[in-house]
């Protein structure tokens, strides 16, 4: 299974052949990142790669450092050590808002929609990185900006349509059911056609049927972009991820394809536990 990235470069080898890609490959490379907050070590020498055509899952116990890892990639948190490389270039002193124009989008834990904008406008904000029209044209309402606005509007409608929520375009987020909001947030991330989407707990709060629809959707994205997800819902992770990285106390304790992870005893004791239905062993004595 080989795919090509947006640049036409060969994608990183599929998960089953090599767990970590060399730093020169296109896509995202996180190398030896270490973060601590006031002496408390949150990430300890963590490395990870992601490239187009691949869905990578990051799992681990609560407080393992998954969200922090996302924050490092996005520039919300500066690592004490290690580096983040995107398409062969190191991201240095980058800000969260730089990422979108580099082709990386992120969804937040929860929904993070703008409550004062309707669904369509929410998605249009996501199109900001590809908007080009200038301030002058905007102030005087000239045609370059209105033409572009029409074009972006079409794209945004397309993105909403793809998520199956086009009919809610004119509604305010707060009046919409939670799963619809989550889809709008996803449409916002996808409208600028990023090369990598990072999702923080996309399944949280969704019902089983919504989760299976989400899994389908993620599968469809695989060919177009890289996907990095943090998730506690094992159904989703096991069903969609090509490769899984397990964090515990800030360290990578396992990497592999879903079946390997499921079978890994270290992961089971630290994170998965027994199946929910059975009486759990007293893991925390």
């Amino acid at each position, binding site marked *: 299974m080989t795919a090509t990235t947006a640049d036409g470069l060969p994608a990183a080898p599929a998960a089953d052949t090599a767990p970590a890609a060399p730093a020169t490959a296109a896509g995202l490379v996180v190398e030896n990142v270490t973060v601590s907050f006031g002496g408390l070590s949150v990430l300890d020498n963590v490395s990870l790669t992601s490239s187009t055509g691949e869905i990578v899952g990051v799992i*681990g116990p*609560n407080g393992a450092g998954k969200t*922090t890892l996302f924050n490092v990639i996005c520039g919300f948190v500066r690592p004490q050590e290690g580096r983040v490389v995107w398409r062969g270039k190191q991201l240095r002193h980058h800000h969260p808002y730089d990422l979108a124009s580099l082709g990386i989008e992120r969804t937040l*834990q929860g929904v993070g929609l703008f409550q004062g904008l309707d669904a369509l406008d929410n998605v249009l904000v996501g199109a900001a990185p590809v908007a080009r029209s200038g301030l002058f044209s905007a102030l005087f309402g000239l045609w370059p900006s209105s033409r572009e606005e029409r074009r972006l509007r079409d794209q945004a409608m397309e993105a909403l349509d793809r998520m199956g929520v086009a009919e809610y375009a004119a509604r305010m987020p707060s009046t919409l059911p939670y799963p619809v909001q989550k889809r709008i947030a996803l449409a916002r991330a996808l409208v600028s056609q990023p090369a990598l989407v990072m999702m923080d*707990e996309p399944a*949280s709060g969704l019902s*089983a*049927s919504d989760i299976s629809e989400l899994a389908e959707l993620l599968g469809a994205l695989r060919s177009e972009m890289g996907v990095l997800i943090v998730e*506690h819902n094992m159904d989703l992770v096991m069903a969609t991820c090509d490769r899984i990285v397990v964090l515990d106390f800030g360290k990578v304790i396992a990497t592999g394809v879903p079946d390997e992870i499921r079978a890994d005893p270290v992961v089971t004791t630290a994170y998965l*536990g027994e199946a929910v239905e059975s009486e759990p062993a007293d893991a925390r004595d």
Partner: protein
Amino acid sequence: MLEIDRLSVAYGPVRALTEVSFEARDGSITAVLGANGAGKTTLLRTITGLVPAKEGSIRYDGKEIAGLAPEEVVRRGISHVPEGRGVITELTVEENIRLGALWRRRQPDYQEAIDRAFALFPPLESRRKQSAATLSGGERQMLAIARALAAKPDLLLLDEPSLGLAPLVTAELMRIIRELARTDGLTVLLVEQNARSALSIADVAIVLNLGRVVASDKAAALASEDELRHRYLGF
């Protein structure tokens, strides 16, 4: 004993609950299930008085509590873990928990209840003095639950407690809830998206759809009704 009788709730023109009736016996766990937007959160918020009931009655220990302010409902021994955690991020972990129990600070087991809440969630113990804002998503969920338990409630309302929790912790949480119900006689109303795990510990379950109760039965019985499961519970 919680008795809900023909309860209706509306947000302006939007009807959220229509004539909902059920009972929760002392020491029982009742799972409240249903799709997104079915009205589960609204039900819990109405019980605690955060949302006014339009019609119907809510009786707890034989007394009407509909119309009471939330703080008064809480002071009757009802704790509510709200959807989306409701951790007060400007306070420390310990202050959050202390606040949860503060209204019963004159009771002799006040401090003991707080200590026990910490003991249930070891990650919190080590973060006592830390600002709650620094906690991870899952840790916040633990804090919200621990805080509710620190008030030593007789009736516990849990709104999607497994949200953001690691599978192992979810399992542990379910075990704790079941144990509290059995040993302490705690009554639990458990709203869960994850119907499978909720039904595994619940005694009875009700299923809401578009604000109406469409099914209510023993948990085991519901779990075995295939059509209902497929239609409303998605598994």
